[in-house]
């Protein structure tokens, strides 16, 4: 059913349909509407789950670990400083191979404090072993939750997943979303079947101690599982398309790439603005296109190399900065295209909620054509020296 609703509420509704048994989260802007809505559902008995209130994000995700290890389907949501406070716990979740799904409502990190959007928070957890999916619009944000649980709980994968969508730009925007029924979701996402679980009658331990003789193998196994996840995400995305008409089998998705000379690469809500900008530039005869990265972890390097094989230059739009280096996505796109001879330029954009217009996208295309890149875009003049 097509409904006109706020992004946060659309996501909360999708989470409800995933039938999480335990939710633990700590409210933080701009994630708050999601967890408020879920707390209401639990209180009103429209969602049969245990909602564990806690005093911090560290405790929220720690509670999720216990619940997941005990064999429950578990959900959390956070953003920015909240995710930063979860840093240690995030690595534990992946190391214990617990298929927790967490919504990240992307927001900038302090200091200075900013409640506005960029993707520094989740990008900074890229090495934690979680899958990371980025949504372009609220439809995708809801749909990716179903897909995330399905892949995370696959016994060949058993890894947590972050579904990332841009704070305010998506979370607080009202737009049409096609919602699914419980029967539809049940047909796509079977009940959680734990691979192993805490059981007092048959005790096991999770995430204990590994000596130098074994630690590397644990890390290797996580890395291999992420590699396998590429195929599982593609399969789950294709199945989603079969059942509901929206195909998410592509980890990266091209727009007007066939004859493009300049290709943008972007993640999240910015892709929509870039698509509109591309239509305008195409109308003026400019051969531009977009490669949208939906799945950032695992990183689909070969898919990116294949999709961009025919272009002359690539302009990566990074809503993050690895300070002292470059944008995180740009670095990996360069790695994916190494040896191809294709010029890759990285642009740091939209940090802390800086708005991006179609004219900005056109200006960045012009910079790339001139061979000017690897720079912040849109800075106030007074800081330039």
């Amino acid at each position: 059913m097509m409904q006109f609703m706020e992004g946060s509420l659309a996501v909360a509704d999708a989470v409800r349909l995933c039938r999480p048994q335990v939710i633990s989260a700590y409210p933080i802007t701009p994630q708050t509407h999601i967890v408020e809505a879920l707390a209401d559902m639990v209180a009103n008995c429209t969602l049969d789950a245990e909602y564990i209130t806690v005093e911090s994000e560290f405790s929220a995700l720690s509670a999720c670990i216990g619940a997941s290890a005990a064999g429950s389907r578990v959900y959390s949501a956070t953003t920015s400083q909240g995710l930063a406070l979860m840093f240690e716990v995030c690595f534990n979740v992946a190391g214990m191979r617990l298929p927790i799904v967490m919504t990240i409502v992307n927001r900038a990190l302090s200091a200075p404090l900013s409640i506005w959007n960029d993707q520094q928070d989740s990008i900074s957890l890229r090495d934690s072993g979680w899958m990371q999916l980025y949504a372009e619009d609220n439809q995708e944000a809801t749909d990716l939750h179903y897909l995330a649980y399905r892949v995370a709980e696959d016994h060949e994968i058993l890894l947590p997943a972050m579904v990332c969508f841009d704070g305010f730009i998506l979370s607080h925007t009202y737009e049409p979303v096609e919602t699914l029924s419980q029967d539809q979701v049940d047909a796509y996402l079977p009940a959680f079947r734990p691979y192993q679980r805490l059981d007092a009658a048959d005790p096991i331990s999770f995430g204990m101690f590994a000596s130098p003789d074994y630690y590397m193998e644990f890390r290797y196994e996580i890395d291999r599982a992420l590699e396998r996840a590429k195929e599982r995400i593609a399969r789950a995305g294709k199945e989603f398309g079969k059942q509901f008409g929206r195909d998410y089998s592509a980890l990266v998705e091209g727009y007007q790439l066939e004859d493009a000379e300049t290709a943008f690469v972007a993640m999240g809500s910015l892709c929509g603005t870039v698509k509109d900008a591309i239509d305008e530039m195409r109308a003026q005869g400019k051969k531009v296109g977009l490669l949208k990265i939906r799945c950032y972890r695992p990183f689909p390097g070969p898919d990116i190399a294949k999709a961009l094989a025919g272009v002359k230059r690539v302009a990566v739009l990074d809503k993050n900065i690895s300070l002292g280096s470059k944008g995180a996505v740009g670095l990996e796109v360069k790695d994916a295209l190494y040896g191809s001879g294709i010029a890759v330029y990285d642009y740091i954009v939209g940090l802390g909620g800086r708005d991006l217009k179609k004219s900005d996208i056109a200006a960045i295309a012009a910079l790339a054509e001139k061979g000017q890149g690897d720079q912040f875009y849109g800075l106030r003049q007074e800081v330039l020296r």
Partner: protein
Amino acid sequence: MTAAELIATAAFENGVFAQAFPAFGVERRGAPVQAFVRFADRKIRLRSQIYEPDYIIVQDSTLIKDVNVFGGMKKGGIAVINTEKGGAWNVPEGVRLVTLNATRIALEALGVPITNTALMGAFAAASGEISMDAMEKVIRHRFGKDLAEKNIDAARRAYAQVKGGA
């Protein structure tokens, strides 16, 4: 933000694509805030804020001295302004000015100076972008029974006033 949400929802009820969003983060009553609405006959992908509005709605005309509310408006645009006394505003050429005392309408219909639904009615009358039927449906969905009827009254009064004055 409530007015933006109601207007966009009414447009959606009328069968067009719509998008409503706040100028993020500082939505609280009393502070100057902005919210944006887009309508289109196809899916809306653009996410930037709106810099060249076809329509503006100003909930409090005393803000006009501090904020360039008419910025980016073009010929054929419509500015719906809630005002008691009017004012010497620098309205761009070709922009139609629609003023009403939405605060008084709200006080009479609702008993509180919350002007969202009155301005929604005025916008519907001035722009023709949303129908009275869709507006009433959305108000009924958004508010409880008694409050909905009062808000529909506010929207209708403003609608009639703007239509009558056109």
